[in-house]
């Protein structure tokens, strides 16, 4: 719950709290310092008054004289109250109509400058002290003197001061809140800019990127991650659109054939054989379409990293290749091509998928190998329980720039060549690549000295390759 509070509110609250605490601290300090100063002043005043009274006592001729002199003195010192008690406790002098607090009266005398007491009496406030009057001409024994000064003016001042300080603290807190809020908003502007940028991104406009240079350091990582995410989305989207449009295009031609054929045949009455042949031909074309759809589904799964190897069995590749040679025996014989196997290797994978992958390479080789030549399948174990399968045939060289594109969907090397019915849709090599990648491997092609070689390597030990599985096309490297 706390997490959901807006950053601006959060930061502003902190500012207000911090500045309020600081202001309060300062106010308390000022208040206490002035308070102490006043106490000092009062103490000094009291000491002066004690000296004054002592002076009067020394100069008095008699108790009467003392009393009248004290009265005179006190008249010119408003706010000063004095009481003198004899050693036996009876009151020798007392300022009229002034009540000393009992606690103060009980107190023992203190040395000069020490221990004043403060008290309130309703609205008024006083500081008082108890001192000794030494015995002298008038006072036969040591007497006690209790003196008090009115500190009302100080009290008023303090009250006013405190009032002002509170007001200022509140005003300070409020304005720091406002300033803080404004500052936070200004500080968070880069986030708002990022948000604005993000809102521009739609499926059709995936090329927006955060400008990492114009963003504060703390947000730079976030911006970079967002950019990478957008890049991945853009790649996937483009591939998806490519995929859909590829499929649509490739379906158009056979569908067109079917449509035209059917309409033409239906356009007039024909004999049974013609109808039969048309239906049979349509049936074949439809089967080819069904295969294409199946293949595309497999490729679509691979694109999204959903092509999983269902079982990881130990595959004896030599056994698989021999089985494939049996399969292609008749076709090879017809083309007058020899199928040769060299080496042996084992690998962990799915037998059906691997067979299909190698089968596509073989059928490709058979298509292009000239009569009387050999197709050589070489198996080599690779470190880390991997294997290399290479299918080599002699034939017309493949241009270097075309080599990476061979594994593109629907790629046909020779666009001009008549599209034989026996040719596939052009998905065979893509499927081989998808299967290799699903096994954590790669496939690549090279063409040199009149030999064309397709090489599957499984699995690849690079963690990068495994990460690339299904989300990026295989690195189309050409071995030199």
């Amino acid at each position, binding site marked *: 719950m706390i997490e959901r509070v807006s950053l601006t509110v959060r930061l502003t609250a902190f500012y207000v709290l911090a500045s309020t605490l600081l202001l309060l601290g300062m106010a308390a300090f000022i208040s206490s310092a002035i308070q102490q100063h006043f106490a000092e002043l009062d103490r000094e005043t009291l000491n002066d008054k004690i000296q004054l009274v002592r002076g009067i006592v020394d100069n008095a001729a008699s108790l009467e004289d003392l009393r009248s002199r004290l009265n005179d003195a006190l008249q010119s010192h408003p706010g000063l109250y004095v009481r003198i008690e004899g050693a036996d406790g009876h009151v020798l002098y007392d300022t009229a109509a002034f009540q000393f607090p009992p606690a103060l009266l009980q107190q023992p005398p203190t040395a000069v400058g020490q221990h004043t007491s403060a008290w309130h009496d309703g609205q008024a406030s006083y500081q008082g002290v108890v001192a000794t009057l030494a015995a002298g001409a008038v006072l036969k024994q040591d007497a006690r003197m209790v003196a008090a000064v009115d500190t009302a003016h100080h009290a008023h001042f303090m009250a006013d001061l405190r009032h002002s300080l509170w007001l200022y603290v509140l005003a300070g807190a409020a304005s720091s809140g406002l300033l803080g809020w404004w500052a936070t908003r200004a500080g968070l502007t880069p986030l708002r800019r990022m948000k604005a940028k993000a809102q521009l991104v739609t499926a059709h406009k995936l090329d927006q990127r955060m400008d990492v240079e114009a963003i504060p350091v703390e947000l730079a990582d976030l911006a970079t991650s967002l950019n990478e995410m957008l890049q991945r989305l853009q790649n996937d989207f483009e591939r998806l659109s490519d995929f859909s449009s590829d499929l649509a295009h490739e379906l158009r031609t056979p569908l067109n054939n079917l449509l035209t054929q059917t309409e033409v045949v239906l356009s007039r009455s024909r004999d049974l054989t013609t109808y*039969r*042949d048309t*239906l*049979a*031909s*349509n*049936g*074949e074309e*439809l*089967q080819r379409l*069904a*295969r294409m*759809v*199946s*293949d595309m*589904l497999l490729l679509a799964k691979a694109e999204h990293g959903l092509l*999983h190897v*269902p079982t990881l069995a130990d595959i004896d590749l030599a056994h698989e290749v021999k*089985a*494939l040679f*049996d*399969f*292609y*025996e*008749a*076709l090879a*014989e*017809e083309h007058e091509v020899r199928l040769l196997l060299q080496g042996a290797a084992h690998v962990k994978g799915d037998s*059906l998928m691997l*067979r*299909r992958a190698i*089968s*596509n390479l073989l*059928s490709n080789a*058979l*298509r292009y190998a000239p009569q009387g030549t050999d197709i050589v399948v070489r198996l080599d174990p690779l470190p880390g329980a991997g294997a290399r399968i290479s299918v080599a045939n002699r034939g017309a060289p493949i241009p270097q720039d075309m080599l990476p594109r061979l594994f593109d969907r629907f790629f046909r090397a020779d666009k001009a060549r008549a599209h034989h*019915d*026996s*040719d*596939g*849709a052009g*998905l*065979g090599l893509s499927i081989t690549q998808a299967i290799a990648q699903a096994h954590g491997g790669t496939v690549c092609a090279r063409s040199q000295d009149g030999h064309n070689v397709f090489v599957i390597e499984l699995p690849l030990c690079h963690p990068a390759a495994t990460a690339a599985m299904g989300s990026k096309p295989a690195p189309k490297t050409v071995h030199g």
Partner: protein
Amino acid sequence: MAVNILIVEDESKTGDYLRLGLREAGFAVDLVSNGVDGLHHALAGHHDLLILDVMLPGLNGWQVLQQLRAQGSAIPVLFLTARDQVEDRVKGLELGADDYLVKPFSFAELLARLRTILRRGRVEVEATSMKVANLELDLLRRRVTRDGKRIDLTAKEFGLLELLMRRQGEVLPRSLIASQVWDMNFDSDTNVIDVAVRRLRGKIDDGFEPKLIQTVRGMGYVLEVPGERCD
């Protein structure tokens, strides 16, 4: 005694043509178009095989199968579906289906698989030899003779001929041939099977009468004496 097949399929075109094709292939066929009726009819026990579409209104194919098996019915089931997930395949087989066909499938494929299922459980007398017209196959000695003349075949050619003869009169789709003879269970993008059959023909049909290996365009191959097909 005709074999009774129940088709549960909500797509009317598919259902109607399947019924027509299977009837013409010699089966007695009933067609229903939703899961509840399908379950009801299947439980009545009059059928030898159930062709079940997965996507059905009301009770779907999975549920029909589950309930069938839960109620003790052991009727063989062939699933039809447009979905191609491995999980669906596994799920279907685990629930007690006997086979699984992904749409679009070829009718010849359906027929062939149907017959394979029906053949199961029947005690097959292991024949030691097979004979069609003047073609003889000695399974023990792996030898082929026609008109008394010995013909040399490779192991796979023998396997192909054996398959065609065993399923004599049945039109075998290429995918089935690839699967049974070579254990290649994917659709090849070449005419490999055609070439293999052509080569076999060259050895056992060329120069002999009658021509036993027939091509049924759009469907597959069949071995039989010509004229014996109901056309």
